[in-house]
């Protein structure tokens, strides 16, 4: 391992430790049973097989959305649309699952493909506005999330709603479309294989294909990319469309693996969680599963803590923010980095 990589790793660990220590401090301040709370938070997820199953269930959507974000961030496109693409992808999958009759295996694949197409189409809008007129993809993709949410709810309500169900939910998806859950006592479903496949595909796309190469060079130094003859406008377009597709596939997978009906009444938030995971993983697809497990573990830990003690699970949002801020802070521990780099340069020179 290169020294600078090692340094980045240490820096991440230190940032995480600082964040967790902050969490402990908060718990001690607000809780009547702090030891119990910390115990639940740290060890809850591995206290039972079922709980660890919960972690892996949550890892699946996180992997998709963070892959989506990492593709866009590697091209330096600050597109926040993974949330909307994920949601609308799930709606599309629900529609295919409900309205079509197809053999098993093929059915979920068609539904997932539909989710990907719809998710990619959604992100085409901010991508096009950026490539054509340099309109901020950040703002337009955030607006798009709200539009996708409303559009999705509209489709569910007017075309897919089950009038006999008590709540505002869709009809049940044909069983042929569901992804099988294969670990007893958990809801871990076949989507986990699709997620692992997605990691590999995205890795190969970014590091082993010409399009991925062009994308990364554009993100690192777009002037250099231009000078080298790379069509950077094209990269702006396809990086965001691909990001939307991955998020859409994620939404579809989540719906077909975890639910019988479409029942979200608000944005599930995995798109934004994907940003956290992507930042933790430094946009590297191969590190994304690790970072996703870490975040899911923390989430489930917080959830278990809030169920058994008086500390609400939303506490993790504070920890997450501190982690992102510190990891993204170039000057955080930069003194040591500088010393390391100088030493390395001396060895090389």
């Amino acid at each position, binding site marked *: 391992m290169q020294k600078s990589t090692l340094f980045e790793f240490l820096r991440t660990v230190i940032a995480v430790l600082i964040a967790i220590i902050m969490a402990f401090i908060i718990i001690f301040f*607000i809780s009547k049973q702090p030891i119990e709370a910390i115990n639940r938070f740290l060890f809850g997820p591995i206290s039972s097989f079922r709980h660890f199953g919960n972690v892996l269930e949550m890892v699946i959507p996180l992997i998709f959305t963070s892959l989506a974000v990492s593709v866009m961030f590697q091209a330096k496109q*600050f597109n*926040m649309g993974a949330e909307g693409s994920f949601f609308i992808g799930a709606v599309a999958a629900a529609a295919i699952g409900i309205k079509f009759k197809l053999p098993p295996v093929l059915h979920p694949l068609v539904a997932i493909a539909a989710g990907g197409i719809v998710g990619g189409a959604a992100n085409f*809008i901010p991508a096009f*506005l950026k490539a*054509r*007129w*340099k*309109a*901020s993809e*950040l*703002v*337009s993709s*955030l*607006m*798009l*999330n*709200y*539009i996708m949410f*409303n*559009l999705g*709810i*509209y489709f569910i*309500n*007017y075309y897919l709603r089950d009038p006999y169900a008590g709540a505002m939910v869709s009809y049940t998806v044909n069983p042929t479309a569901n992804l099988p859950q294969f670990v007893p006592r958990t809801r871990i479903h076949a989507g986990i294989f699709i997620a692992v496949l997605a990691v590999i595909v995205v890795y190969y796309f970014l590091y082993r294909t010409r399009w991925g190469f062009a994308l990364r060079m554009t993100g690192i130094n777009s002037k250099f990319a231009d000078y080298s003859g790379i069509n950077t406008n094209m990269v702006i377009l396809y990086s965001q469309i691909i990001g939307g597709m991955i998020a859409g596939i994620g939404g579809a997978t989540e719906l077909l693996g975890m639910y019988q009906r479409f029942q979200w009444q608000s944005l599930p938030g995995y798109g*934004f969680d994907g*940003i*956290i995971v992507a*930042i933790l993983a430094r946009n590297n697809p191969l590190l994304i599963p690790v970072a996703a497990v870490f975040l899911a573990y923390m989430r489930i830990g917080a959830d278990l803590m809030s169920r058994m003690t008086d500390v*609400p699970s*939303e*506490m*993790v*949002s*504070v920890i*997450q*923010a501190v982690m*992102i*801020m*510190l990891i*993204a*802070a*170039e*000057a*955080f521990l*930069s003194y040591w980095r500088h010393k390391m780099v100088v030493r390395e340069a001396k060895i090389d020179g």
Partner: protein
Amino acid sequence: MDNLFNIIFSTNFGYAVLRVTTPILFAALAALISDRAGVINISLEGTMLAAALTGVIFSAYTGSAWVGLLFAVIAGIFMSSILAYFSLYLKTDIILGGIALNLMASGGTVFVLYLVAHDKGISASLASKVLPQIELPLISKIPVIGPVLSNHNVMTYFSLIAVIVVYYFLYRTPLGLRIRAVGENPDAADSVGISVRQIQFVSLIASGILAGFGGAYMSMGYVSWFSRDMTAGRGFIALAAEAMGMATPIGTFLASLLFGFADALSNSLQSLRIPAEFVQMIPYITTIIGLAIYASRRTQRAGAKTVRKEVKA
């Protein structure tokens, strides 16, 4: 269609436009001040949210809406100080920093809400106060104009005054001059001994104050409670409004009014037989369209310049 016109050309609608413009306007002015100093503050959404909750809590505990407002503003300052410290001193990418703050506020407010109100959705159990409505003397008597302009929440009038204050602040005070100089040419400011980082810090704080006002209005004027994610993207719409307003106070005001109009329309149309989902999309679609038009005109202008040059050369 008749119905639509009846709605738009009613004094109620005019009143509603001002009412819903208020938080967008505060946030857009907040975006304006930091943008003019060359720092983009995308944490406005989270800043407003944090301020909204803080206002509710302190007004409930002290029994005074004004104390609530004060602490809402302090919360705004707190949020923007974090952003300023991390981005200016620890060199955190300001976009990532803003995203982190928004996520923190979104979950953190629910966290705090649960601690104080034992509810994760709404602050109904807190006896929070509301900032007063003001009846404008004389103006309230004028037909049409009276009902539109009078009887608003005090924060709505503050937001209109804020446009003027921001204008004078930016264009007439030494600090405003320095902010504009730093944003436009930091080297020029540096060359005469102005600390760029200090000015940017100050403008982020000012940005936090304005967003604090916007947040306070949300929970102590627009409605009388705090609910999770109640800002619903207004902090982001404000960024678009500021860009469309060409980073000037008056332009920002007009663009905010446009988005307020879209917002009010979406509220009013809920009584018609249009699917609610489409109605609710109106403000966001308007924002994207507005952004696209603004950006395309900007690039066309740049294009026209080169064409002219070619002719001249």
